[in-house]
């Protein structure tokens, strides 16, 4: 029994549910108390001792069903609901050993191929337009932490949203560059034109945040102390104390998709956010396509490069290539920088689930009350398993989660997009299909610091 339980705990750890030796021993003691003759009771004993978060329940049940397949069942096919207050369950003996290896999901390590594609689209996708409509009306959506959505000026009025989404209003290539859809085909010259607007945007955000900080220096009125402070002199004159904000050092994690469809928005976003944040804050930059790679130093070095005339030449001379070729610093384009990062495959299909899973499992996963996690991505995970639980776990460890979606909101959750599964775990979703949207997203981040 001990070795079987040990293998089960190892399997759980491989799947991302970390159980310490103390918890493993506790599970052993629990099984001793409850016995092995009832499978359901055995499952409850392990679940109660090894699972520490609601988000882990589903994973535990899946691994349990795969590992301790009951006679006459085929493992995961008979998996139970993840609800904690499950039914009483029948008395069934436990299978002698683990199920065949094929019944459990393979671990998504870097050396192994990605998990099989999930043929069913995200079930929550169809609910996204309703969610956006509800949030525009100031209603929270379901029981997730999603509370706000920031759309561009073309967003419909809250009531109008109920009638059904209107077709996306794409900006023509010659229109206001700030409103130009970043998903349009754009030459490196066009990208260069957009990149040239970045300093102006940075200055504008800096100016606004400076005003806000000056306003908040005195703090908010502290009503609870009015009586105490005024008692000393009988309330004449009445003292109105102010509560100053406690200084705290925020940590920021920029988790950015740099696959083909998002690379241009990613380059511009990192240019804006990096300029604003690199001097004063504790910032980490993680880039991903199908696995997350820490690129903090490389992005910092890239941003420190001064723009040179060679940037124009580098972007324009080789014709239309990867998105991000025209966003260059000191002769190095963003596309080139991304291609040179070890461990990152920019041409691979996006796999958000695998990237989130890997990050949630790693020892360097972001977390902390003062940590703001900013994700930039369209959630298009090529019908791979979205593994929303992994993102939920990442999000639950962070004080604030902002998701920037570089697509018009009408396309959110359509096709292979798994945004419907991810966005409930973010506090704010921002439409960043153009440069103005990116500026809005970065301003939201700065506002929360």
């Amino acid at each position, binding site marked *: 029994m001990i070795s079987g339980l040990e293998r089960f705990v190892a399997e759980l750890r491989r799947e991302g549910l970390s159980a310490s030796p103390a918890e493993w021993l506790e599970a052993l003691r*629990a099984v001793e108390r*409850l016995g092995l003759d009832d499978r359901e009771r055995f499952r409850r004993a392990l679940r109660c*001792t090894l699972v520490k978060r*609601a988000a882990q329940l589903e994973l535990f049940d899946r691994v349990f069903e795969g590992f301790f397949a009951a006679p006459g069942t085929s493992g995961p096919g008979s998996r139970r609901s993840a609800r*904690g207050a499950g039914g009483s369950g029948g008395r069934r003996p436990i299978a002698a050993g683990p199920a065949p290896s094929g019944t459990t999901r393979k671990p998504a390590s870097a050396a192994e191929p990605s998990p099989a594609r999930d043929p069913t689209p995200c079930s929550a996708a169809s609910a996204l337009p309703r969610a956006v409509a509800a949030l525009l009306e100031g209603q929270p959506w379901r029981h997730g932490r999603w509370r706000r959505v920031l759309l561009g000026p073309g967003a419909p009025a809250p009531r109008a949203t109920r009638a059904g989404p209107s077709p996306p209003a794409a900006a023509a290539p010659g229109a206001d560059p700030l409103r130009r859809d970043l998903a349009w085909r754009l030459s490196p010259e066009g990208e260069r034109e957009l990149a040239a607007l970045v300093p102006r945007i940075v200055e504008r955000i800096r100016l606004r945040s400076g005003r806000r900080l000056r306003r908040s220096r005195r703090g908010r009125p502290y009503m609870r102390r009015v009586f105490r402070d005024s008692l000393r002199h009988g309330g004449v004159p009445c003292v109105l104390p102010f509560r100053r904000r406690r200084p705290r050092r925020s940590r920021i994690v920029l988790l950015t998709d740099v696959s083909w469809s998002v690379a241009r928005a990613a380059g511009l976003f990192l240019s804006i956010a990096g300029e604003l944040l690199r001097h004063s804050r504790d910032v980490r930059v993680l880039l991903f396509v199908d696995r997350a790679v820490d690129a903090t130093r490389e992005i910092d070095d890239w941003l420190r490069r001064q723009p040179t005339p060679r940037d124009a030449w580098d972007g324009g001379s080789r014709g239309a290539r990867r998105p991000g070729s025209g966003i260059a610093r000191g002769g190095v384009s963003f596309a080139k920088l991304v291609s040179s990062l070890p461990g990152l495959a920019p041409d691979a299909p996006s796999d958000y689930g695998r990237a989130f899973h890997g990050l949630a499992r790693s020892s360097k996963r972001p977390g902390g009350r003062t940590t703001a996690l900013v994700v930039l991505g369209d959630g298009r995970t090529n019908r791979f398993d979205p593994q929303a639980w992994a993102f939920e776990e990442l999000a639950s460890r962070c004080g604030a989660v902002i998701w920037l979606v570089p697509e018009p909101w009408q396309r959110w959750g359509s096709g292979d997009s798994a945004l419907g599964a991810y966005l409930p775990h973010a506090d704010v979703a921002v439409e960043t299909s153009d440069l103005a949207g990116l500026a809005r997203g970065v301003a939201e981040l700065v506002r929360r610091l």
Partner: protein
Amino acid sequence: MTSPESIETALRSHGFVATGEVATALFLAEQLGKPLLIEGPPGVGKTELGKLWALCHDAELIRLQCYEGLDEAKALYEWSYGKQMLYAQLLREKTGDLLAGAPDLASAVRRLQGQTDEFFSREFLLPRPLLAAITATRPVVLLIDEIDRADEEFEAFLLEVLSEAQVSIPELGTFRAERPPRVILTSNDSRDLSDALRRRCLFLFIDYPDFEEELRIVESRVPGLDDTLRGQLVRFTQSVRKVSLRKRPGIAETIDWALALVAVGAEGLSAAALKQTLGALLKNRDDVERVLSDLPRHR
């Protein structure tokens, strides 16, 4: 309580319909001597379970309601400042006798040394819930309610209490529980609790019940309700929970609503009865309007 089934039966005798999952978690908490962390949406019976557990064991329930800003002084102990002052005043003459003849301040202080400890003895200690639970001589259930509302510092402070069943008071030393209290922590998951705290507890997640389960709960808590109406009521509640609402109704609200329907003598879920009593189920005006505007869908 020798098995999860006996716990299930004991809880049922007090009107609480416990699932096997709940009974097993309580049984293991009892057997392993570990605190039990219960998470779940508001109104599913987390606090009630703590109260009934005390009732089942004929134990005293000591409840610590957590909130932002809760600190050691409010949770563990305080010195009774007023009592200390009163005693100091009453004993002024005695103090005068003690200090009589002291040639200088230093010798007076030396004479006082050892006497001042009397003012920091158990006589002047005001035990708050945690200390009361640790020093209790009879069986106790310590219910730390809504721990997610407390600050992270308080969470860290709780670690010693949870793992060692002891607390330290600088003036008096360490108090260790002779009979460790049964501890239940509840959380609405409004913020993520630390891994350190979670590791010290067994974990139980209570979600909204399914139709059959909720039917049994209403039957047990509101026996006077007609069977048909009970079915309609539970179906309605289950349907309403699927709607995007500001505050989804928990089991407590379902029971309140059932009681309200009995009180107004409703024979069915008519529009009039709904308008009269829906306030017991939904706690927000927008939610009530939203549900009333789409009544046929829920009935």
